[in-house]
């Protein structure tokens, strides 16, 4: 494995040497990101718009294929001294880079380069997810999303309903009715590592329950997982009940069709997924599919809190020249323009990250028309509770991806091997805690900013 890692470092060193000294009067800066496919094309277009908008800087944007690969490549390049100026880091990698000291804080960068940024303009839920415990922004929120419930209106009409379930009690009755009406897959879901965030983290967020102590880790590296102690246990039990009754069906790449494809195809009637899939589902939906989105349901009697933001933010790395930092600042200034927010939200399903961008989109009537209607619910969901609400507003846990893997393994044991719900979740939490302790020990002596 290490041979590969070193090999990768070597490759990047060579690539950077070859790509580096292009004789040009423009300052070139590198921007590495993890999105692929259609989204990668949209990022590329944004970079081209920036390059065309001014004559001093040229940003070279390179997709690394996935969030994990992008982070891995950035780290390898950083350790070899060949890092890009701007790197995209997803929610799961945020804490590692925050503790690394390998970055130029975004707020400091903009001040140093003479830009004034109204940090309060960022939606609080989005800002808080990436901010330090003191509320300082070290990175720029970039592609942001949150989970929504997607529902098939025609199927619900068959059971005499014209609205999506707002509570899980209502949802349970709907699933039952849909099943009775002959639908084979009332709720499509998956419990693989990459698809547990909407079932777990988002559920806990909207219910205002912690995933871990110490305010989900914002207040210290000594946080302990606590998702196995609250309402979520009941939710997993309910989900398992629906699964056993055939009202909820696992749909994944391994079974042959993801739940998103199953929904777009009309095979599943309800799914929970990112607002980022809104555009994709719109484009790939079977002809005549009559669908809409709603906020995630909560259990009856719950005071709804803000959901968490998903996606990634942009970090500026250390070890670059002043000219390159000027270029980076100019790029951030450019992508913060409301017009850019409009284009970005039009071509992707991602939401604007600033209030001003959102207002601009509203003025343009963006959310009134069919393909984009409903996406404003993501903003509503992200801002359901005020910024000063004591409920956790993000997750700041080390080894988050490994913890998700443990949760996923726990859920798979419950759903596939019929193991006890509480015992499996306890095991997942125990094993997650071991990951947290190891992480804490790795960064011994460092304090969380």
């Amino acid at each position, binding site marked *: 494995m290490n041979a590969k890692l070193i090999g990768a470092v070597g490759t990047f060193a060579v690539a950077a040497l070859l790509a580096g000294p292009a004789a040009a009067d423009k300052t070139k800066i590198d921007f590495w990101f993890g999105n692929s496919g259609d989204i990668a094309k949209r990022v590329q277009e944004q970079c081209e718009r920036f390059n065309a908008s001014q004559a001093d800087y040229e940003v070279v944007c390179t997709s690394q294929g996935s969030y994990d690969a992008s982070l891995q490549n950035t780290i390898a390049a950083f350790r070899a001294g060949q890092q890009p100026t701007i790197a995209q880091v997803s929610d799961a*990698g945020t804490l590692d880079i925050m503790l690394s000291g390998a970055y130029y804080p975004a707020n400091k960068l903009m001040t140093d380069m003479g830009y004034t940024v109204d940090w309060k303009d960022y939606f609080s839920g989005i800002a808080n997810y990436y901010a330090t415990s003191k509320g300082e922004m070290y990175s720029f929120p970039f592609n942001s999303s949150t989970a929504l419930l997607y529902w098939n209106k025609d199927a619900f009409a068959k059971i005499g309903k014209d609205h999506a379930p707002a509570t899980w009690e209502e949802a349970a009755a709907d699933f039952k009715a849909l099943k009775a009406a002959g639908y084979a897959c009332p709720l499509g879901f998956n419990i693989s590592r990459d698809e547990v965030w909407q079932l777990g983290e988002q559920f806990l967020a909207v219910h205002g329950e912690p995933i871990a102590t110490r305010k989900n880790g914002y207040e210290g590296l000594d946080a302990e997982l606590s998702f196995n102690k609250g309402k979520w246990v009941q939710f997993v039990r309910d989900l398992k009940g629906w699964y056993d009754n055939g009202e909820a069906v696992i749909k994944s790449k391994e079974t042959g069709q993801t739940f998103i494809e199953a929904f777009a195809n009309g095979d599943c009637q309800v799914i929970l997924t990112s607002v980022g899939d809104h555009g994709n589902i719109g484009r790939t939906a079977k002809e005549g599919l009559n669908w809409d989105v709603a906020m995630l349901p909560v259990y009856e009697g719950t005071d709804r809190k803000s959901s968490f933001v998903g996606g990634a933010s942009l970090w500026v790395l250390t070890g670059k020249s002043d000219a390159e930092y000027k270029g980076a600042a100019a790029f951030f200034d450019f992508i913060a323009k409301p017009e850019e927010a409009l284009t970005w939200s039009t071509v992707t399903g991602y939401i604007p990250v600033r209030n001003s961008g959102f207002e601009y989109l509203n003025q343009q009537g963006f959310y009134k028309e069919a393909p984009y209607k409903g996406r404003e619910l993501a903003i509503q969901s992200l801002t359901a509770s005020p910024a000063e609400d004591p409920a956790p507003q993000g997750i700041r846990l080390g080894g988050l991806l490994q913890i998700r893997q443990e949760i996923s393994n726990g859920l798979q044991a419950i759903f596939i091997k019929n193991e006890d719900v509480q015992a499996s979740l306890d095991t997942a939490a125990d094993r997650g805690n071991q990951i947290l302790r190891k992480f804490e020990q790795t960064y011994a002596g460092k304090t969380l900013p």
Partner: protein
Amino acid sequence: MEKRATFSSTTIGLLFALPMLVLIFVFFYWPSGQALYWAFTLEQPWGGGNTWVGLQNFRQLLSDPYYWGAISRSMVFGLGSTSIAMGVALLLALFTDREMRGHKAYRSVFIWPYAIAAPALGLAFRFILAPEAGFLSLINQIWPGLWNPALDGTDAMIAVIIAFSWKYVGYNFIFFLSALQSIPRSLIEAAAMDGSGPMRRMWDIQLPLLTPTLFFLLVINITESFQDSFGIVDIMTQGGPARATELMVYKIYFDGFKGLDYSGAAAQSIILMGLVVLLTIVQFRFVERRVHYK
């Protein structure tokens, strides 16, 4: 007296060997040394420093029942895929050697799978073996619920073993075929004249003469099955369902490359390396005795 230029043989020898030694050092000893060092520390991924923790990483791994599960799954995977890949390849090579119809085409076609990258292979097999949409979904239409690698651990293990074996059948086939073709025809013809049939000749002449190749491929296949399977596992099952296909090498890949736990992954790769070395020693010690090189 004729004058002769003399060279110190040691220096010249070393000079000729130097490029190779440098390559081996850069691509093998250096990274292995780094991994060995990391295995005894806690390394911060961004390079902010590390702490010496002695054997802690190893102790944690070896006291984890799930890690032992991964070790035994790797064994099952290694034995399963090696026997399928070698058995099928040997059969195909024996048939091709008998110059059955179309043998010229097989000879070049069978090596192709080895040239396919593991992720592409995984993608293809995920589709072929998908319980609801793939080719094998036909089975489920006849016996509902019989085949489901997405929800059944045993099926998932069978699926990754099949995909991995499929890749190595081609590789083994080439070795078997060339070994078979280097067996003197006169031996086989003599046996045929004495009245032994094809099966007898395979069993008594060809197989014994193949033992060096069999042994070589056994060592290679076992080693590769422990190291080369993470791409297929990552695409086909991600180690699931419920850890059923979490092999040692996939765990290394996931912990190190995705989870940024460099030290844990380094310790695991040291354990994996030790295990592969041990298995190879066992094979040389006990299996090689039965090999006849001449």
